């Protein structure tokens, strides 16, 4: 069943700034959708429009078939976890969680039951009488989630909830959020700028760029078949190598001295891409091209090699190679590489759209 529908939803600010031109998205019940994009791409604005904290300028938002544009945040049956948690500092953990239920006129014993259930689930039982300032970052995060869960809403909204935590805790909370969401089966809309968070949490991802949804799909769809160079560069770490090239009869002409053979009916300017992990080490005779090594980053489990494509006419485009395991090639030496055609990504330079394979 479709739970949340955004139909041509757009946002224009009173000063004329066109933050979001038009976004279409339909979310299935129980689905975990992540909105991801660089800062200023409009992802938080879109989330706040769903929450009712920002007005919707054009288009329509429907939750369970009901139009929500004119409804107050409280009437939308959503719960939100804020980036800074937004816990009420003068209230105890218990009161923070009970506040929404009290406002809805729930009976006191029912509130107690609900809060203690959720507190037990999140391991907050011991902390119910504390004030937010007496809690650690991870505990505050849990209280914020508890406050959202206790109301049993139709939709959870998360606005970069992990960005204030340290790296280790972030990984831990990421796993917890995913488990909880699976357990509760609540439809979730989650905003982040961190592509790792996005890839690991999402059932489906929405990559936003300048207020436009560049691509919507499962993490693997986006990884395997990015629709635009923007998505290609945004998803995956380190980013995909993207090089401006020309598609000719001979193949992909990367520079005057380097053409990779390919038969394709498209002609003209393209962006050629290959992921760092898909480049393979080869030898002088079988290689597609050579890389002049500029820097080596050894991470133990993998090695990142930064260099520039080298031809008879000199150094060209920068490129990153990712090899598993430790490698220690000399800086400034040459490395011979093959780029399997299977892993190429081609985009039209003008329309920025993926070319059919």
């Amino acid at each position, binding site marked *: 069943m479709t739970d949340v529908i955004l139909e041509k939803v757009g946002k224009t600010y009173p000063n004329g700034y066109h933050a979001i031109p038009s976004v279409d998205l339909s979310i299935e019940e129980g689905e975990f959708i992540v909105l991801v994009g660089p800062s200023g791409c409009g992802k938080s604005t879109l989330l706040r429009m769903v929450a009712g*904290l920002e007005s919707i300028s054009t288009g329509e938002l429907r939750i369970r078939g009901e139009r929500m544009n004119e409804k107050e945040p409280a009437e939308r049956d959503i719960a939100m976890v804020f980036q800074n948690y*937004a816990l009420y500092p*003068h209230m105890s953990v218990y009161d923070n969680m009970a506040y929404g239920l009290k406002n809805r006129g729930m009976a006191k014993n029912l509130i107690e039951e609900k809060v203690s259930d959720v507190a037990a689930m999140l391991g907050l039982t011991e902390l119910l009488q504390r004030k937010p300032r007496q809690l650690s970052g991870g505990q505050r995060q849990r209280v914020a989630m508890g406050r959202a869960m206790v109301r049993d809403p139709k939709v959870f909204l998360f606005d970069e909830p992990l960005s204030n935590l340290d790296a280790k805790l972030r990984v831990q909370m990421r796993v917890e959020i995913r488990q909880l969401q699976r357990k509760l089966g609540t439809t979730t809309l989650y905003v982040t700028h961190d592509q790792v968070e996005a890839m690991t949490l999402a059932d489906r991802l929405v990559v936003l760029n300048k207020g436009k949804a560049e691509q919507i799909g499962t993490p693997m769809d986006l990884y395997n078949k990015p629709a635009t160079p923007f998505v290609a560069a945004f998803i995956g770490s380190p980013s995909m190598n993207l090089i401006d090239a020309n598609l000719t009869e001979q193949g992909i002409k990367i520079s005057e001295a380097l053409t990779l053979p390919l038969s394709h009916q498209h002609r003209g300017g393209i962006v050629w891409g290959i992921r760092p992990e898909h480049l393979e080490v080869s030898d002088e005779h079988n290689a597609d091209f050579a890389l002049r090594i500029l820097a080596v980053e050894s991470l133990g489990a993998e090695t990142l090699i930064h260099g520039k494509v080298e031809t008879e006419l000199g150094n060209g485009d920068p490129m990153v190679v990712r090899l598993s395991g430790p490698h220690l090639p000399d800086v400034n030496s040459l490395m011979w590489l093959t780029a399997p055609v299977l892993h190429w990504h081609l985009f039209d330079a003008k329309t920025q759209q993926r070319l059919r394979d």
Partner: protein
Amino acid sequence: MTVTFPQKGLPWLLLLPQLLVTAIFFLWPAEQALEQAFYQEDAFGLSREFIGLENFAALFTDPLYYQSMLTTLVFSFSVAIVGMSLALLLAVMADRVIRGKLAYQTLLIWPYAVAPALAGVLWWILFDPSMGPIALWLKSAGVDWNHYLNGNQAMILVVIASTWKQISYNFLFFLAGLQAVPRSLIEAAAIDGASPFKRFWTIVFPLLSPTTFFLLVVNLVYAFFETFGVIDATTKGGPGQSTTTLVYKVFNDGFVGLDLGGSAAQSVVLMAIVGLMTVIQFRFIERKVQYS
């Protein structure tokens, strides 16, 4: 951080102007008042006689003095509560204004720049029973306004005049306090189903309590000690004793009644009250009601 001076003399030299001002205008008169409180002096200041604690004894058996204390309490709390309520209301509204915010806020701050005596005169004219526009309007509305005869009306007038000046100050602090309340808290409360009214009373107002407490102390001190100009310009403590606050009584008994000893004894009592309030102010403001 401690700054050390190579010579011993320089720091004293730098402190000297401030110390001189303090000594001449504060310590010396205070000492004079203390001394005078134990003497009875004739009206021309030509002779005086040591009478011990008699001035104090007279003071604390005088029903008029207790009356004045009560007047001061009523006056001070009225000024503090009315001034703070109105300022909070204005600040909440100013916080919501989007267009012309600066102009609105600047206009609200202006009354603070008006001298107390001028504020008094302004309200005195507005409420003058025979020609003041507000008094005439009140009369046409059926209220018989004459603060020269009616003690309660006189009290209302001095409260209005004193409050008006203080609203700007309160407004500034409340506005800053409101702007320090994180937006996300109010948004979270909105999602939690709290009406705007409820959001204010359960979230915003408790978070403002450090500001509110600070302003309460400041306003009480203001009403106690800094409203002499306003009262003198509007009612001169009258009619009868109805607007004679403790500070006004010091002046009235000393310089109008020429009972310098009695007036000095009252000053000493006031000094004790100031000391007490200062202690309260420092004790509580540093400790009480601090969030985050």
